């Protein structure tokens, strides 16, 4: 019974395409996140939503647009994909955002060719 699930696990696509990554959590958490892990394993937050409201929006190109239809889902849509977007994208969730740990999905490996 997966707590935080992402689909797809692997995504290979051509430059210029538009793609989406979906994330769902069944933990009843009210806060969800998207992180990007680059080829050097460096993790950086992209977005955070609390109760469907965007609360953290790092310096991310406008081509990236998160959408949270409800508290249990946070999707990431990427327009006009570029080679530099190739990375592993992790979704995570937590209850509140202060002192509770985050639970991570297994990641989506995006390869742009």
């Amino acid at each position, binding site marked *: 019974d997966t707590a*935080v699930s992402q689909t797809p696990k692997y995504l290979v696509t051509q430059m210029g395409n538009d793609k989406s990554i979906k994330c769902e959590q069944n933990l009843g958490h009210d806060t969800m996140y998207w992180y990007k892990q680059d080829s050097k*394993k460096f993790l950086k*937050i992209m977005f955070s939503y609390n109760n469907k409201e965007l*609360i953290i929006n790092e310096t991310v190109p406008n081509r990236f647009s998160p959408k949270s239809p409800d508290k249990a889902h946070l999707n990431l849509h990427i327009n006009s994909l570029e080679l530099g977007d190739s990375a592993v994208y992790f979704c995570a969730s937590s209850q509140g*955002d*202060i*002192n509770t*740990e985050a639970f991570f999905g297994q990641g989506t490996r995006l390869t742009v060719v």
Partner: protein
Amino acid sequence: AQSVAQPEDQVNVAEGNPLTVKCTYSVSGNPYLFWYVQYPNRGLQFLLKYITGDNLVKGSYGFEAEFNKSQTSFHLKKPSALVSDSALYFCAVRRGNTGFQKLVFGTGTRLLVSP
């Protein structure tokens, strides 16, 4: 802005020996500190956290970490390493007591435990 430094890219230790993975942080105000582990092709798994209270924090799989305010460190330790502990370890920090704050990760330390 908060930041985390993990000075070692890789730590090598023999099975049965104690291990330490180093982490230092920089944050204004009270820090909330976390350790996560990442196995190959997997997401991050939470190990332990320091919020307040006892400086020695115990976590999953026999790991513990010691919060040292004067040295701004939060080193991860285990008395006896297992081969199965081999993985990528991340230290993370966020500012406490100030509402929603982002969790900032270090660059990770690869732990290799040899049989």
